[in-house]
């Protein structure tokens, strides 16, 4: 074996060990609830807990709405920038990166001050309003991932020519986006959607400070008071994230192929 290959494999093995050993340890620990033997008791307790079901269902619904907000916001924006305003792209990329730089706690305190019951937009005055604000907040947190995923998808197609071809055949903007652009970047949109889902499912700060019954605060609460269940929840959370990533991989096989890039 060449020296360079040895070091490459060693680095890979160390990285894999760093990642997998804690995961395996967590999995192993989550199975030791019953004294002296392995069992799925911790998983049974967690999955049977009404609060788990309620918070997970709440976060799933919020994630779905967040994805819809993200798609409606990002797809037309990224499309229009590619088509008509390419010079503004660096500015928009910087804006979409801001949620990575500004901590979620700063954003949520800003929301609380801006959208309290005395403000002109009193989102926080009602439960439904707070849910909407939480979804908007999540859409903001997911913006860096959603924007990049969609922009990368748009890069693989000739946006301008396809738009013009559709226009000259009588299509208006809604038809162009719904029937030509969106289907051709669908895999990219789905990638962004699953990343958004993974972010929303585990998010703690915003949901906790806005006092919503989301999965993230539930995870934290269980972790503070139980021994084996938090480990089982961590494994479940990993499984959900990996499941999302696997779905992205499977769906990418069905991506529309171009003449230039048939595979």
């Amino acid at each position: 074996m060449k020296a360079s290959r040895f070091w490459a494999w060693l680095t890979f093995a160390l990285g894999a060990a760093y990642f997998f050993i804690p995961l395996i340890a967590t999995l192993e620990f989550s199975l030791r609830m019953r004294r002296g033997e392995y069992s799925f008791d911790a998983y049974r307790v967690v999955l049977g807990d009404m609060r788990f079901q309620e918070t997970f269902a709440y976060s799933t619904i919020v994630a779905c709405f967040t994805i819809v907000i993200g798609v409606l916001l990002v797809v037309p924006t990224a499309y229009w920038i590619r088509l008509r305003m390419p010079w503004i792209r660096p500015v928009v990329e910087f804006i979409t990166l801001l949620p990575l730089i500004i901590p979620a706690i700063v954003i949520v305190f800003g929301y609380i001050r801006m959208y309290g019951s005395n403000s002109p937009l009193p989102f926080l005055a009602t439960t439904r309003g707070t849910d909407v604000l939480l979804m908007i907040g999540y859409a903001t947190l997911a913006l860096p991932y959603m924007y990049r995923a969609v922009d990368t998808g748009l890069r693989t197609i000739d946006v301008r020519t396809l738009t013009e071809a559709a226009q000259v055949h009588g299509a208006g903007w809604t038809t162009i986006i719904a029937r030509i652009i969106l289907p051709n970047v669908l895999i990219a949109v789905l990638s962004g959607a699953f990343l958004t889902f993974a972010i929303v499912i585990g998010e703690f700060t915003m949901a906790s400070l806005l006092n919503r019954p989301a999965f993230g605060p539930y995870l934290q609460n269980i972790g503070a008071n139980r021994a084996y269940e938090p480990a089982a929840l961590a494994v479940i959370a990993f499984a959900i994230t990996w499941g999302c990533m696997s779905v992205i991989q499977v769906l990418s096989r069905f991506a529309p192929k171009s003449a230039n890039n048939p595979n």
Partner: protein
Amino acid sequence: MSETFLSIQGVRKSFGQTTVVKDFNLDVARGEFVSFLGPSGCGKTTMLRTVAGFEEPTAGRIMIGGKDVTQLKPNQRNIGMVFQAYALFPNLTVAQNIAFGLKVAGAPKAEIDRRVEEMLGIIKLAEYGSRYPYQLSGGQQQRVALARALAPKPKLLLLDEPLSALDAKVRISLREEIRAIQKKLDITTIFVTHDQEEALSMSDRIVVMYDGKAEQVGTPFEIYNRPATKFVANFVGTLNVLDGTVIDPATATVRINDRDVSLKKGALNGAKAGDVLSLALRPEAIVLGKQDGRDTSLGGQISDVSFLGSVIRVRVGLGKHAVSLDTFNSPASPPPVVGEQAEISFSSSDLLVLH
């Protein structure tokens, strides 16, 4: 010319300080095939995009079928267009691509199906309706693009260098196919190309463009044989340019390489004795040696011989000039040899004075 269908009146298009199309005027008859021919950057594609509605003219107006469409959006003009890069929708099958315009227009399903079948027949891809664009060759994709453009029965067909991305053999067969379909459907067509052979072989008329202006508008025969400007003469076909000094304006006599040559009356266009004119001569107007009916001959030396298959291109040095001429390849006679003395002859009436 019969009834004008497309009328481009005084169109100017500027991007910032740069004017790309300058005072462009053209009337196109119904069913006519007109090519915009010119080098890159001459404004031909911008002019086509202005007709399509993708660019708004800075000045002037565009009429289609007697209606002013200058302010209409592309999707309101009832135009079909074929793009250089095919621009087929990758997520739709061939049949769905062809049906796109009809679906957008809200045509009934039965009519869409019938029209798609008809178009697949016209482009000879009847078996390919369920395939996706990436499963077709470049030539097939461009035929589908043509069918998609024609399916909604547009009033005007615009072709933006549709053959440029194809290999030479496919290009020739497809240009014949496009022309045959255009004639069959009798659809008014504007074709943009930088390939003179395409323009000459396909068009009813050619607009030679240079620097945003129409240098000359005419039939392929007129453009090739009677170029109006030096640019047209140089751009269309191969051209030999000889300097001729005016000896006697009254008899239109000029001197080329110490040989006096009489041109057609009026050819000097007001030039005075002593003026030096640029005289153009097509390679096919020159023969090696003397030949009956050719009144002028000049002596020189063969400087280059290029074998082009059925034709041999010979370059002959004539003092400070050199001219190219074509002779047919004959297996029975050997090709000319570089360095040999040679005499060329031509008809003085074939000389064009370039202005």
